[in-house]
């Protein structure tokens, strides 16, 4: 720690300088994390003052970030998604290339791809990567003598046993519309296993959701409804309450992103380790886990001179030993790290260990948003229609194929 902070101090100029950092959102976990980092950094670099600012999450945040970049008024460091959302910021024109930084050699190749372009690496990883799939209650599984399913049919039969025991088999939480997408988005590693060039074909307007293998996510969503395997308040349940129901064993499964384990730490700390993870079961019986890459810290081109040096030092600090300790203690470890300097702590939530098994056996694949820029804006609404019986899986997938045309044309992709 002393070594790395000494190194950091040497690169920052002696003159006092103030930089501003835009946190990755405005929820308590993200604000607390950014503030803790800033405080530790200022302690190690007394000549630098770091001001933390927060922003809305979701699409409001996307538009705020684009507006600030376009008007050259972006904070000196900002934390934001990697993958297709980063690509929409035109990183080559807007952001400072950090591929020459010492930490850049230590990031995983997947992260390098997700936080950069052919011309540079623009972001340093912030927090861990996370997986999409099924979060399940281990105590319910033990009580009912269930085994982690590999095929979709095994999953359905597990669900029927859970239902017979009087518990909710699958939590569906359309009160927060984005949660409707998980059976489709988290199935993508299974799609890319069957058709390794699916994403490339999809981007070139040659593969469609309306056809297998991608259709599976839609039919699975419809099947949960048609077999009535979800909670009866599915139309209004919020994701926070769904997590509570999962943690307390009122329900067995929740298709989700493992990053939300941080919320369980807040709401049900005693039950965190009752929750496990498995990949979305596939028809083939060899399911792969879908991986979401870590968020990243970026520096806009409008930051120059002394401020740029201080900003680069701050970004490097995030993955220093102190930075890693803060990441581990702030409760955001939801999967393996994307950089070799940070290690998953021994006391990480139980579901992280489940994820690491997939990583160890190389049964993982990146989510679609890291391999294609196309994501239609209405997927969550369409899946609510499919998952509430308003339209069939086939119709929903067809609507979504129409929906992405807008996105592809707005991006000016060839072939649309």
């Amino acid at each position, binding site marked *: 720690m002393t070594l790395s902070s000494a190194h950091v101090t040497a690169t920052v100029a002696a003159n006092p300088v103030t930089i501003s950092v835009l946190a990755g959102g405005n929820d308590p976990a993200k604000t607390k994390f950014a503030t803790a980092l800033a405080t530790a950094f200022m302690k190690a670099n007394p000549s630098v003052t770091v001001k933390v600012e927060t922003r809305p999450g979701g*699409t*409001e945040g*996307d*538009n705020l970030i*684009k*507006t600030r*970049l*376009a008007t050259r008024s972006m904070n000196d460091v900002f934390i934001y998604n990697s993958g297709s959302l980063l690509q*929409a910021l*035109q990183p080559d*024109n*807007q952001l400072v290339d950090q591929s020459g930084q010492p930490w850049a050699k230590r990031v995983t190749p997947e992260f390098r791809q997700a936080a950069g372009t052919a011309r540079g690496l623009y972001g340093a990883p912030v927090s861990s990567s996370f997986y999409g799939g099924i979060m399940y209650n281990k105590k319910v599984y033990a009580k009912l003598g269930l085994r982690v399913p590999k095929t979709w049919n095994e999953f359905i039969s597990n669900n029927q046993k859970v239902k017979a025991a009087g518990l909710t088999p699958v939590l569906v939480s*359309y009160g927060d*519309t984005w949660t409707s997408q998980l059976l489709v988005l988290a199935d993508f590693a299974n799609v890319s296993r069957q058709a390794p060039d699916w994403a490339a074909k999809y981007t070139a307007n040659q593969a469609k959701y309306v056809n297998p293998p991608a259709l599976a996510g839609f039919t699975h969503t419809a099947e949960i409804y048609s077999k009535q395997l979800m909670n009866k*308040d599915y*139309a*209004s349940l919020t994701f926070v309450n769904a997590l509570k129901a999962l943690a307390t064993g009122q329900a067995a499964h929740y298709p989700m992103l493992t990053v939300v384990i941080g919320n369980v730490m807040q709401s049900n700390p005693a039950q965190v380790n009752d929750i496990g993870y498995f990949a979305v079961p596939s028809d083939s019986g060899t399911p792969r886990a879908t991986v979401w890459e870590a968020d990243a810290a970026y520096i806009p081109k409008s930051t120059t001179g002394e401020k740029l040096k201080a900003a680069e030092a701050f970004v490097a600090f995030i993955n220093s030993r102190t930075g890693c300790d803060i990441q581990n203690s702030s409760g955001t470890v939801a999967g393996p790290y994307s950089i070799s300097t940070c290690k998953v702590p021994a006391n990480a939530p139980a579901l992280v260990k489940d994820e690491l098994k997939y990583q160890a056996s190389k049964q993982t694949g990146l989510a679609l948003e890291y391999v294609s820029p196309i994501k239609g*804006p*209405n997927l969550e*609404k*369409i899946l*609510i*229609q499919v998952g*509430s019986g*308003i*339209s069939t899986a086939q119709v929903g997938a067809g*609507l979504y194929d*129409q*929906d992405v*045309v*807008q*996105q592809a*044309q*707005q991006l*000016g992709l060839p072939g649309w």
Partner: protein
Amino acid sequence: MTTSKPVHRVKPAAPTQRSPRTWSTYPLWFFVPVLVLFVVFFAVPTFSSFYFSLTRWSLFDSTFIGFGNFVQFFKNPQLYTSFIHTLIYAAVTSGSKIVLGFLLALLLTSPVIGKGYLRAVVFFPVLLSTIGVGILFKSLLDPFHGIVNAALGVLHLPQPGWFTDPALALLTVAGVDIWKGVGIATLIFMAGIVAIPGEYFEAARIDGATPAQQVRLITMPLARNATVTVIILSLIGGLRSFDIIWATTGGGPGFTSDVLASVIYKQYQAGFYGLSTAGNVVLFTLVTVLMVPLSYLLNRKQVEV
């Protein structure tokens, strides 16, 4: 009824005679500040939005693509349903506001006990923030934890999913909109009714007109000005309606309560800035095409009366 109550001696509305044009005593350049504000905050954004609707616009740069956005906008699979929803929503909300507003205005201009209090009650929702109202009703009408369905459950009545049932969502939002907006309509009607000279009612009563006849033959025709205002304001409001829908259902479940404005907003959210600007131009055109002839028609008939 025969005892004469103090009748408002309102002078009959002045005939629309205009005094010969007198030149303002103020010099013309007094208008310059307002003109600058108008140009900077209205004219420039309006005309630049017409330009940006013809571009593929990423906030960082824009490429001119002609009418591509409009073609794309009209190909949107949700456009047709959202258009129908917009018309249903505008018709239901403005129709109800006219009828309810008129009835409430009749009640509140008549000698009823606690008139001042009732007027305040009717007008109060207008003062609330729309988003606040949305959040409030979302929690009141929650199908499982809301107080309304809890009350219905006690009475053994069905407990519908107000905002979550695809068949009900749009009408529920319209209901909330009516609750919030009827106060304005009532206020305008009250102003119109109070302005009717009391002699007309007095004369009608002497001739033996029933209260219903007075309403039908005196109040309704003479409050026509107010009716026209309410129709036009509430229809424009209904066609452009967005905030209450966004706060309660977000256009859902699925797309069952999506209106034009929410489709446009979702395109903006998704980062399709040129496309959503094109949508706004379409909405602007739709409101103009519907409202200008309607306003002309309503106001012309008014002169004939």
